[in-house]
C-alpha cells in the first residue's frame, strides 16, 4: 500500500514549505515539528510487516515487527523534542529583545 509513503512525503514537503516561507517564528518551529513527525512516521512504516506483532517476545510469534526502526524512532523523538525546546527558548528571547516575531520586521529592525 503506497498511501502512507505519499502521506509522509506530503508532510515532509509541507514542513519544509512552512520553514522556508512562513513569516511568524512560531509557525516556523511548528514546521520543524511537522517535518520531524513525518520522518518518525517514515521510520515506523519501514519497520512494519503486515500481520506482524509488536516486538515484545513474551512468547514466540511467527512474524515480529522489525525493532530497529522503533529504537531509532525513539531516539529521533527525543532529539526532536530537545531541539524544539531550544528553538522555542530562542524565539522567546528574540521576542523579548525585538518585540516582534515577524521575520521581515526583524530584518528591518536589525538594520
Amino acid at each position, binding site marked *: 500500500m*503506497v498511501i502512507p*509513503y*505519499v502521506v509522509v*512525503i*506530503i508532510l*515532509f*514537503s*509541507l514542513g*519544509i*514549505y512552512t520553514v*522556508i*516561507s512562513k513569516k511568524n517564528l512560531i509557525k516556523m518551529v511548528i514546521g520543524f515539528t511537522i517535518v520531524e513527525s513525518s520522518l518518525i512516521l517514515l521510520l515506523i512504516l519501514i*519497520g512494519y510487516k503486515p500481520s506482524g506483532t*509488536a*516486538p*515484545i*517476545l*513474551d512468547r514466540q510469534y511467527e512474524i*515480529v515487527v*522489525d*525493532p*530497529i526502526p*522503533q*529504537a*531509532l524512532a*525513539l*531516539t529521533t523523538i*527525543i*532529539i526532536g523534542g*530537545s*531541539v524544539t*525546546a*531550544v528553538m*522555542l*527558548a*530562542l524565539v*522567546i*528571547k528574540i521576542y*523579548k529583545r525585538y518585540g516582534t516575531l515577524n521575520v521581515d520586521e526583524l530584518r528591518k529592525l536589525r538594520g
Partner: protein
Amino acid sequence: MSKINERLKKLHTIALVVALAVFLLVVVYEIHNLDNNSKRYLSEHYISEGVRETGAINLVTSVLYDYRAFDTLGEATVILTAAAILSLLVPVSKATMLGTKFSIIVYQTTKFSIPFLAVLGVHLIFFGHLSPGGGFVGGVVLSIIPILLTITYGVEFSESKLKPAKKKLVEDIGAIGFILLGLLGVVTGSNFLANGQANFGPGNTGELISAGLIPYLNVMIGIKVGAGLAIIFNSLIKEK
C-alpha cells in the same frame, strides 16, 4: 511593485517545495518497485537471538540499551546539552511566571495525582525490558511531577520543593552513572557498554531482575531524562 515580487517570491518557494515533493515521489516509486527483496537480516538476527543474548523481552529496549547502547549515550548527551542551554539562557533573577489563581479543586487533584504519577513513572522505568516503556518514557513521566507543581503552585513553590541545583545534580549523576555502568563492561574485560556480551547474569528472562545491566541503565537514563526535562520546563517558564 512590491506586490508583484512578493507574489513572485511565494511562487518561487512553492515551486521549490513541489520540486522537492516530486523528487521524493521518484525516490519512493523507485524503492517501491524494487521492494521485493528488502533485506532485513540484521533485524532477523535481533528477533531470533535477541531474547537469548540480552535477556530483555522488549526487543526495542534490548536494541536501545545493549546492541546500540552508544546511540543512547549520544542521545542522553543531547538532552543534557538542551538542559544546559536553557539553564544558560535564563538569568538567575526572580521568576516571572504569569501565575493564575486556581480553585481548590485543582490544588487537591494535583496533590492526589502526584503519587500515581510517581508509581507509573517508576513502573515504566523498572519494567522497561519487560513491557513497552523504558528509561526515556518513564523519565518523562517522572518529570511531569515538578511540572505539575510549577503550573499549579507557581515556580517559587516548586523550586523550594525541588531546588534547581538538586535537579542539575541528579541529571549529572544519571549521566555519569550511565557511563560508569558502561565502563563496568570494560573492567570485566569485555568492551565498553557491553552487558549481553559480558553475560552479567542475564537471569531467567521475564523476571524483574533479569537482562543483565539493562534495568540499571534504564534507571540511570530515567533519572537523567526526568531531571533534564524538569530543568528545561522551569527554565522556559522563568525566561524573562
